[in-house]
């Protein structure tokens, strides 16, 4: 029933997975139905933990044999010891967090490395929609009306880079990518990523860490 292979995992998750060393300890915050964690567990032998707020998704994860805690990521993160994990992953959830700075600081406390990804609000299609129609943009990556969107923090790739600089954490890796409509395939965007990439994915650490 869980016959995922590397080809069926979302493109952005494939990139995240490629950054994670086999056999490490990984926590996925807002892990949904555990697609990434399941892949990492079975292809990279990681010791996985997930945090997810919705009962139905938590149940789906546990049915798959994943270790997952039902709860609010901002609360659940407080209980873990310093450096409890090798990697802390926040995949496409940063834009939904009320206090992103506090969360990222907590993530950097419990994990040696942190992976964060988000839809790029600086993409040309977003800019063009606002400019030409005057309406709040709706894109495949940000598919909600303004009154129903969970994406309360709109940020661009440029925003995240300056955020890292100002708040004092180190960007170890950056992947700016462009994906197809279903996010199954995609490509790296090296030229003018803030305009052309649909997602930004970052591997970050504390400044003081080696």
């Amino acid at each position: 029933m869980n016959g995922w292979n590397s080809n069926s995992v979302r493109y952005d998750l494939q990139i995240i997975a490629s950054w994670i060393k086999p056999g490490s300890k990984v926590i996925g915050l807002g892990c949904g139905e555990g697609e990434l964690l399941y892949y990492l567990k079975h292809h990279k032998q990681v010791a996985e933990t997930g945090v997810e707020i919705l009962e139905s998704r938590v149940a789906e994860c546990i049915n798959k044999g994943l270790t997952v805690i039902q709860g609010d990521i901002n609360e659940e993160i407080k209980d873990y010891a310093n450096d409890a994990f090798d990697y802390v992953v926040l995949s496409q959830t940063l834009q939904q967090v009320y206090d992103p700075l506090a969360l990222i600081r907590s993530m950097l406390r419990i994990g040696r490395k942190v992976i964060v990804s988000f839809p790029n609000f600086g993409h040309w299609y977003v800019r063009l929609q606002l400019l030409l129609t005057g309406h709040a943009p709706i894109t495949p990556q940000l598919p909600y009306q303004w009154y129903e969107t969970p994406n309360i923090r709109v940020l661009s790739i440029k925003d995240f880079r300056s955020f890292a600089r100002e708040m004092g954490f180190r960007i170890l890796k950056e992947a700016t990518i462009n994906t197809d409509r279903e996010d199954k395939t995609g490509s790296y965007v090296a030229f003018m990523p803030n305009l052309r990439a649909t997602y930004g994915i970052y591997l970050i650490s504390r400044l003081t860490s080696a």
Partner: protein
Amino acid sequence: MISPLVYSITKFMSEYITHDRTGRSVGRVEKKYFTFAEPPEEMVLDSGCRLGPVTIAYETMGTLNADKNNVILVLHALTGDSHVAGYYSETDDKPGWWDNMVGPGKGIDTDKYFVVCSNVLSGCMGSTGPASTNPATGKPYGLKFPMVTIGDMVRAQKALLDHLGIKRILSMTGGSMGGMQVLQWCVQYPEMVLSAIPLATTMRHSALAIAFNEVARQAIIADPNWNRGDYYDGPKPNVGLSVARMIGHVTYLSDEALRQKFGRRLQDRDSFSFNFDGDFQVESYLRHQGAKFVERFDANSFLYITKAADYFDLTQPSGQSSAVDVFLKASARFLVISFTSDWLYPTYQARDMVKVMKKRGLDVSFCEIEAEWGHDAFLLPNKRLANLIRGFIDSVYERME
């Protein structure tokens, strides 16, 4: 030790037990007995008292594999027994108390796993308890029975598993007081427990839970027939015990469950009686539950077992102010489950437990199941619960292989 009458009565364990609509059942099961701690080798209890001989009634389902690594231990709640699933005979009206969960292809799959369930020490369904014969006097123990703790219950279960030649338990589960035994196992015999599923339970009995138990106990103690626990030759304290059961039933349900099930509907009448015969359906229901309960349960057992639950506190096991590091030695993988409408062991108590496990770096999963039926939700057929338990146990089993 146990009369055929008691056997037939155990069929009416709970109002919820029904034939499984899927028609799947583990089939015929047999109650067995294991006796140990023969004097002078008595069992030493947490209180320091000695007890022996000790008999534990138990039932097993499924097949123990050659490696003896497919064992699942089920621990029952306050008024449960060893009859977790299946039927004693073809004429049984009802199966065991968790037949919806334990059986072929069910949440706890007896085609794959070997399931063991025993009656707790101080119970009255075949294990040694206050109704058993005191070898010193030749009469029932009554109040001469020593006080037993959750730790003592677990010690007796360990003796049973030793007898069965089982060294490792793949998984263990239980709700309510069964969940307390699960947690106790994980700290008392950590090397034996690979994984554990505490359901609708707590690390320490709350003041609310103690309060309800004390009211229930006082109802029994106030019954003149109780006679300081010495009633086995005469009339039994049925009034007190049935009131105790009525109180219990209220705590097992919830505001919403009572509203939906009964509301303010009247029983067998169209208008108020203006007397105390009982007007409301909820009154009639509780009286019925109380009356049924006294046929199968011993009042002294009820006193002892509720006290054991009240004493339960993994954080301060000795009852003194010195706290211990809970789960310090535990190494099991945990799946903690609570239910939204459970007000006897509310979700915050499950979260407290999960928090300690996380801080210990233990492998813990937690799910709060949306359920309207209160504390009793863990006993009811629930697809989500069955799938969670199945998925979790299977993953522990696969990881081991």
